[in-house]
């Protein structure tokens, strides 16, 4: 749904008078949608059901034999009834599925128009969350009313059953309508905020995003974002980011600089009695580092003999190859930058850095930092004019599509880097395709275990054993378990991980699950990968001290 956002209070406060500002939402007063509403404190909450709303209307209803019945169609004429067609109706029932757990406290059973004899002479109102266990809310074995209107203590239920508990052996039972009323919150609601125009013609560089919320147990709040160059979202806008539930200062990889910004809040609850509350939202933004920074990653075969005939955006999976990360920075009215942060799908070895075709000297012209998967190139001289940067690196790729990302940083505002966009040459310019060679997700020949044996005696030398392995073709993190056994098969240590394609290093410190150092001896290890197919590898490792 597209909801309209009425901001009664938007504060744009200057963090840095020259460049950095914050977009602030402190209240959502004025929002009144079916799915989301605003509470008395101005916080965004899930829509609350009106006590006069018939929750059963148009919901599926069935009788005791599983046949669909028309008791929730809103009609009370004789052609739209549940008719038992017999007077032997004891324990017959109709049941309604409310589609989701709701807070209910009232059930009304309506007889067909003009029929005041074939009603339930006794009834039981039962509710259930799971359609397995039902709780009786009301039991009346002497009913004299053709219209039953009964209330009870509010209860959370998805299924409502009306069961016949008395018969008069003369009349059938006919029910025209079963109505269910209650209150509580909807199970889910989405607020799609209005597009935010950051107010000036110059596109902005988006910084960290924060929000405050109350998240009671059983509820959840996630946020999504997108940016664009036009006042109305269209094909030129980015896709929504993945849902984010971390609210402590998230730096999103949104296309930037852009003038327009939009967010979407998704609220859910498993308990209609409580709702998550979004109480505040902030987003830093500032002057762009450059008018545009684009990049592409291609294979570099200039210094190696390669026999394959793949195009330059494809490489064999699992084979070390050289690549070029080509960046083009059009500084324009931007502030310029000193640093480039690059993120790789696997650990890389940076070979060279070139500026406008000139090879830079490491140490005097730039420095490198990072763990191999992330690399920060810090230039000695600030870059304030348009420039082409080329980073030569080598790595092994394991996925069918390997994404690279990066940003440039004006160190005056280190928390607000500007993302590198794919160059115009192709939409997937910041990616390389992997093809062939590795059939499975794991190549046992690449498994390394060292030091073996190791000595967890705390002397700082060979105190932990490292398991190095590579996984391929696992695009999203999957459960990976390292277990260590003694020779009798007894499990002594279990380490649970979430991993995807790439090179991985897992350490065992020689301690068991209780934190005690294991006895000297020979141990077995096994790594199980839950990749959709059964994959495991194992070996022996010695402990000596």
């Amino acid at each position, binding site marked *: 749904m597209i909801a309209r956002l009425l901001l009664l209070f938007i504060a744009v406060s200057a963090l840095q008078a020259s460049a950095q500002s914050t977009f602030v939402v402190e209240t959502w007063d004025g929002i009144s949608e079916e799915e989301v509403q605003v509470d008395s404190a101005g916080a965004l909450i899930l829509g609350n059901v009106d006590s006069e709303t018939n929750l059963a209307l148009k919901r599926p209803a069935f009788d005791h034999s599983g046949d669909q019945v028309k008791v929730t169609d809103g009609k009370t004429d004789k052609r739209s009834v549940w008719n038992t067609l017999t007077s032997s109706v004891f324990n017959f029932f109709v049941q309604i599925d409310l589609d989701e757990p709701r807070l209910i406290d009232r059930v009304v059973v309506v007889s067909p128009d003009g029929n005041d004899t074939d009603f339930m002479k006794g009834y039981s109102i039962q509710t259930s969350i799971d359609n397995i266990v039902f709780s009786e809310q009301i039991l009346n074995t002497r009913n004299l009313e053709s219209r039953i209107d009964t209330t009870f203590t509010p209860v959370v239920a998805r299924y409502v059953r009306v069961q016949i508990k008395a018969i008069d052996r003369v009349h059938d039972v006919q029910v025209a309508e079963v109505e269910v009323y209650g209150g509580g919150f909807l199970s889910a609601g989405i607020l799609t905020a209005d597009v935010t125009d950051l107010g000036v013609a110059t596109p902005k560089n988006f910084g960290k995003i924060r929000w405050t919320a109350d998240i009671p147990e059983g509820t959840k709040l996630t946020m999504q974002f997108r940016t664009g160059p036009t006042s109305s979202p269209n094909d030129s806008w980015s896709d929504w980011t993945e849902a984010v539930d971390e609210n402590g200062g998230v730096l999103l990889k949104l296309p930037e600089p852009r003038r327009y910004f939009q967010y979407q809040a998704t609220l859910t609850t498993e308990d209609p009695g409580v709702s998550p509350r979004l109480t505040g939202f902030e987003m830093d933004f500032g002057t762009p580092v450059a008018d545009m920074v684009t990049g592409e990653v291609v294979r570099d075969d200039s210094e190696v003999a390669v026999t394959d005939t793949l195009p330059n955006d494809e490489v064999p999976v699992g084979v070390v190859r050289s690549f070029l990360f080509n960046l083009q920075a059009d500084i324009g009215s931007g502030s310029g930058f000193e640093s480039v942060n690059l993120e790789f799908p696997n650990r890389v070895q940076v070979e060279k850095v070139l500026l406008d075709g000139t090879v830079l000297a490491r140490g005097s012209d730039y420095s490198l930092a990072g763990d191999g998967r992330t690399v920060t190139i810090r230039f000695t001289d600030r870059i304030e004019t348009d420039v082409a940067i080329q980073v030569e690196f080598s790595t092994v790729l394991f996925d069918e599509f390997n994404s690279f990302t990066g940003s440039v940083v004006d160190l005056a505002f280190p928390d607000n880097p500007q993302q590198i966009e794919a160059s115009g040459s192709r939409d997937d310019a910041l990616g390389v395709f992997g093809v062939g060679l590795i059939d499975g997700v794991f190549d046992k020949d690449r498994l*390394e275990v060292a030091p*073996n044996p190791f000595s967890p005696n705390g002397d700082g030398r060979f105190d932990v054993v490292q398991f190095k392995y590579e996984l391929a073709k696992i695009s999203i993190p999957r459960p990976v378990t390292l277990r260590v056994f*003694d*020779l*009798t*098969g007894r499990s002594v240590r279990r380490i649970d991980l979430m991993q995807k394609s790439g090179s991985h290093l897992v350490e065992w410190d020689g301690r068991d699950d209780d934190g005690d150092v294991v006895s000297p001896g*020979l141990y*077995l290890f096994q790594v199980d990968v839950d990749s959709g197919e059964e994959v495991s590898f194992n*070996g022996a490792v010695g402990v000596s*001290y």
Partner: protein
Amino acid sequence: MHRAILFSLSFVAVSLTPSWGAFETLGQSSRASAMSDAVIAQGEGADVLWYNPAGLAGEGTRQVVVDYARLYPGLDVGPDINSWSLSYVQGLAGGDLGVGIAGLGAGFYTENALGIGYGRSMGEKLDVGLGVRMLRWAADGYRDPETGVQDEDGSGLKPGFDLGLRYDLLTIEEGMLVLGISGLHLNEPDTPRRLLLGVGYDHPLYLAEVDLELVDGDRRVRVGGEYKLGGHYDLRLRAGASGIAGDGAAGEVDGGIGFLMGSLMFNYSYHYSSEISTGANQRLSLGYQF
């Protein structure tokens, strides 16, 4: 007799602590392994020395048994793991004396054990046994191939004292219900104190046993049996299963055969673990009785 049982029980009822020398719990006998080592009450032959020294009592003949196993043959990384033992028993001073050596080799890591045990019958129903063993482990220090840094070699040496008994509980039809209790490494807090309690039924056509093993705070239940097909070679079929309860729960199944060719005894066992996909352990033994 009852005092002897109480003495044995009180002696082995000690706290269980972490240990090294765990290779011993893998067993040293193909016959026993085929029955998941559920042999505390009904072990026989020279290699019973490693399970319950009381089982040595009544052997009456000289016997030598050599046993070899390749453990976890399907490992992707690490050395080949081999286990072996050589055991001997003969009558001495009204009882039976057993001696043996056993070892585990895995490239950079080795464990060895030297054991001596003596078993003797105390009346018609009770056998008791005492054992002494010396355990040694050694590991080559790791050498970093890039830096050349060499870790120190590691080793350790510990003695262990064992005590066991077997008691014929009662006769049921043609068979005998037997109780076995064995405590291994009872003296040493740093070695694997193992308390084993077994009840077995020995029938002329078959035997069956259930054992409970306590080691390092874990409880393992072992169930095993042997079907005596007989015939010219006294062929025997064996099977067993064991399981660990608790957090490190695991299960194993075993099977095997044994037969005699004159004075030669041949046993084979096959061991499968449900937890570790490294291939089955297989164990062979050859014995000679004279």
